[in-house]
C-alpha cells in the first residue's frame, strides 16, 4: 500500500499543476469572494476563456478519444487533473454538466456529422450544454416525462415543460428527453434529442429557489422544431440513452460543498460552549460529533483513493463511488446546523458582514436541502445502491404492461 503516483501519473500531475499555476489563482477565501462579486456575464466569459486554454493545452476531454479532440488517456488521469484543479479557483463549473454528462451521451449515440458539428466546440468552451430531463410531474420517476414530440416531415415538434435545468439560461444546446409514443409502456415511448436552446419557442425562466438564489431554470417548449438528424438513438430508445447520461451524473455529482470538519473545528475554538464555560471545542458532545464528521469525510476521501487505485490498475471502479452524495449532502447540512445552533441567538444572523465565515454556514444550511434532492434524491440513490450493488429485487411497479397514456397521474 502506498499513496504514490506511478512515474507517468506523476509526470502528468506535474504538467497539470504547471498549467493550473499559469492560468488560475490558487483556492483561497479571497479568490472565492472575488468570484462571487463577478457579474454572471463576466464569470461566464472567464469560464469560457479558461475552458479554451484547457482544450489548447490538452486538459479538456482527457479521457475522450483522440478523434473527438480528447487525449485518449485512462480515467485515472482525469481524476488526477480534477484533484489538482480542485486546489485552484478554476471556473470550470459551467461546463461540468455539458462535458461531464451531455456531450459524452452525444458521442455515444450520434453519427459522425453530428459529432463533428458539436463535440469540438463544446470541448473548446465555445458552446455550453444543459440536460433537460426532470419535469414538474417527473422527478425521481423521470421516465414519466410528458413533454411530447410529434413527427412532422424531417422534423419533430416539441411541446411541454422541463424543470430544474442547471445553466439553461446560459446554455447553447441541451439534450432533451421527450415522449414520442404515449401508446406503449412508459419506458418504451421515450426519445432523446439535441435541442438548440436559442430556437424559437424555447422559453427559459429562472427558478427562485428556497435558498434565495437562482441557479436552476424552468424551460418551456412551445411548437419547437427539432430536425430528425438531431435524434440520439432510435425513437423509443430514449430511456437507454438517458441511463448512459445518468450513470455519468453519479460520478459528476457528489463532491462536498460548504464548510468541512476543519472549518467547523477552527470555528469551535472561537465560540462559547453551551456549558457556560470555555469554548465549544471543549464541549464533549461537540467533540463526539466532530469525530463523526472526520470519520465520514476521511472515509469518503479514502474511498475515492480506492476508486483511483482500481482506475490506476486499469480496472473498473467498484460501487464505492456511489456513496458520496448520500454522505456529503447530509454531512454538509449537519455541520451547518450544529454551527448555527452553537452561535445561539446570534445564529439567526446570516449577513456576510457579521456572520462567521461570511455566512458560509447559513449558505450551507439553506442549500443542503437542495443537494439532498438534486442528481437523484437520497432515497433514489439508496434504491440504486440496494438494487445495483446489493442485488435486491426491484420494487413492485404499478405501471407494468400499461400504456403511458392510461397511467394514473394524481395531482
Amino acid at each position, binding site marked *: 500500500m*502506498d499513496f504514490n503516483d506511478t512515474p507517468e501519473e506523476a509526470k502528468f500531475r506535474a504538467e497539470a499543476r504547471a498549467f493550473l499555476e499559469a492560468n488560475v489563482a490558487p483556492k483561497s477565501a479571497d479568490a472565492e469572494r472575488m468570484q462571487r462579486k463577478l457579474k454572471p456575464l463576466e464569470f461566464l466569459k472567464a469560464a469560457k476563456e479558461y475552458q479554451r486554454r484547457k482544450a489548447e493545452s490538452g486538459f479538456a476531454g482527457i479521457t475522450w478519444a483522440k478523434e473527438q479532440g480528447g487525449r485518449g488517456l485512462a480515467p485515472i488521469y482525469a481524476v488526477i487533473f480534477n484533484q489538482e484543479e480542485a486546489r485552484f479557483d478554476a471556473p470550470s463549473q459551467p461546463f461540468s454538466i455539458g462535458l461531464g454528462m451531455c456531450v459524452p451521451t452525444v458521442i455515444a449515440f450520434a453519427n459522425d456529422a453530428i459529432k463533428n458539428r458539436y463535440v469540438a466546440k463544446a470541448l473548446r468552451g465555445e458552446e455550453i450544454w444543459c440536460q433537460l430531463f426532470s419535469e414538474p410531474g417527473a422527478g425521481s420517476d423521470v421516465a414519466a416525462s410528458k413533454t411530447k414530440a410529434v413527427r412532422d416531415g424531417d422534423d419533430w415538434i416539441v411541446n411541454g415543460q422541463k424543470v430544474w435545468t442547471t445553466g439553461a439560461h446560459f446554455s447553447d444546446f441541451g439534450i432533451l428527453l421527450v415522449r414520442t409514443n404515449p401508446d406503449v409502456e412508459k419506458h418504451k415511448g421515450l426519445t432523446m434529442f439535441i435541442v438548440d436552446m436559442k430556437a424559437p419557442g424555447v422559453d427559459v425562466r429562472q427558478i427562485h429557489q428556497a435558498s434565495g438564489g437562482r441557479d436552476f431554470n424552468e424551460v418551456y417548449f412551445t411548437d419547437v422544431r427539432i430536425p430528425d438528424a438531431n435524434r440520439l438513438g432510435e425513437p423509443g430508445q430514449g430511456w437507454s440513452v438517458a441511463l448512459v447520461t445518468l450513470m455519468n451524473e453519479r460520478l459528476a455529482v457528489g463532491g462536498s460543498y460548504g464548510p468541512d470538519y476543519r472549518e467547523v*473545528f477552527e470555528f469551535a475554538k472561537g465560540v462559547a460552549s453551551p456549558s457556560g464555560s470555555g469554548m465549544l471545542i471543549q464541549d464533549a458532545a461537540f467533540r463526539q460529533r*466532530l469525530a*463523526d464528521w*472526520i*470519520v465520514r469525510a476521511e472515509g469518503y476521501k479514502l*474511498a475515492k483513493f480506492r476508486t483511483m487505485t482500481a482506475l490506476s490498475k486499469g480496472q473498473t471502479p467498484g460501487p*464505492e463511488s456511489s*456513496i458520496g452524495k448520500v454522505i456529503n449532502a447530509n454531512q454538509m447540512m449537519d455541520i451547518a446546523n450544529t454551527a448555527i445552533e452553537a452561535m445561539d441567538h446570534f445564529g439567526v444572523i446570516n449577513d456576510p458582514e457579521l456572520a462567521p465565515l461570511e455566512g458560509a454556514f447559513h449558505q450551507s444550511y439553506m442549500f443542503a436541502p437542495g443537494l439532498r434532492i438534486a442528481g437523484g434524491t437520497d432515497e433514489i440513490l439508496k434504491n440504486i445502491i440496494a438494487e445495483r450493488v446489493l442485488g*435486491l429485487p426491484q420494487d413492485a411497479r404499478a405501471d407494468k404492461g400499461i400504456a403511458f397514456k392510461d397511467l394514473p397521474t394524481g395531482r
Partner: protein
Amino acid sequence: MNFDFSDDQKNLKEQARRFLSEKAGTKATRRVLDNETVSFDQDLWRSVAEMGWLGVSIPEAHGGLGLGRLELCVLAEELGRALAPIPYSSTVYFLAEALMLAGGEQQKAALLPKIVSGDCIGCFAMSEGPGAASPANIASTFENGTLTGAKIPVTDGDCASHAVVLAKEGAGLSLVLVDLGQPGVSRTVLKTVDPSRGHAKLEFRAVKAERLGAMGQGWELAEAVLDRAAVLLAFEQLGGSQACLEMAMDYAKNRYAFSRPIGSFQAIKHKLADMYVAIEVARSNAYYGAWALSTEAGELPFAAAASRAAASDAYYLCAKENIQTHGGMGFTWDVDCHLFYRRAKLLAVQAGSPAVWKEKLVRSLERRNVA
C-alpha cells in the same frame, strides 16, 4: 496510488475464508457460546497455530512468518467475519504487539516462539471498573517486582497464560508482564454479553511480574499498544459488519411478505443501503489504519482512532439492522443474528469504547493542527 491490498494478500484472505468456513463458522462459535465450561475452541486454536497465523507478523528469528501487518489485517477481517471463538486478538494484537513494541530481548525470546506455536495465550488487563480507564482510576500496584490488585474484565483472562497489565509504580504507571500460572493469581470467570469469548476477573496477590518497557512509561505504552490493536480490531469489526450485511441481503431476497420478497420494499432497501454506506466508510478508514500500522507512520494515532470509531459504529448498525431485517426469526437463539449483535458490543467496548476513540480522534486532530 495503490490503496489496496496486494494480490498475495487477497489470496491469503481467500484461503483464510475457505479455511474458516470449513473449520470454524457459527457452529464452532455456538459450541463455546452454549457451554459455560468451554473457554475457546481448542481444535481451531491448534489449526490456526499450524497454519502459522499466530506468528504472521512475528520475526522469523522468533519462529514467526515475518510478514507485515497488512497480512495480519487480512486475517483479522476473516476471523471477525467467522466470529472465531479463539483468543487470537488477545494473544496476537495485544501480547505479541506489546512484546514487540516494548519487550526486552529476553522477554521476546522467551515468549514469541511460544505464541507462534500456540502454547502461550495472552491477555491485556487495563480496566478495573465501569468507565474508561485512565491514569486516575488504576489502583493495581507494581512494586519491587511484585504486582497487587484486581483487573475486571479481562478478555480471555480465563484461559490466558500471560497477561500484560497496566499498574501504578511509584508516582507513575508501568506496563508489566505477568505469568498467570503462579500462586497468588486467581481468576473468576465472568458472565458477559458475548459468551463465545472468555472473560475473567484477575486478582494478583503480590505475584511476580516484570516490567515491559521503561518505568513510568506505562500509560504511553498502553496507548501505543491500543493504537496498533485498534486497527486490527477494526478489521475484525469490518468482517463482522460485512457478514451481517450479507445475511440481511440473503434473507431480504428470499423472505416473502405481502407476496413479494421483503427486499423489494424501500424500507428494507434503505436500511441495507445505510449498512453498505457505513461499511464502505469503515473499510476505507480501516485501510488507512492498515497503511499507517504497516508503515509505522506518524499518522497512526489519527488513523487508528478513525478506524475504530468507524468500525464500531458500522458493526452496531449492521448487527442491529440485521436482526430487524430478519423480523421475529432474528430474535431467536437459533438464528445467528444475535451472535453478531453480541460480538459487535464486545468489540465496541473492548480496548476503548467508541466515545473514547472519538475523543482520541479529535485530540489527534488538535495535535496535528498544532504541529
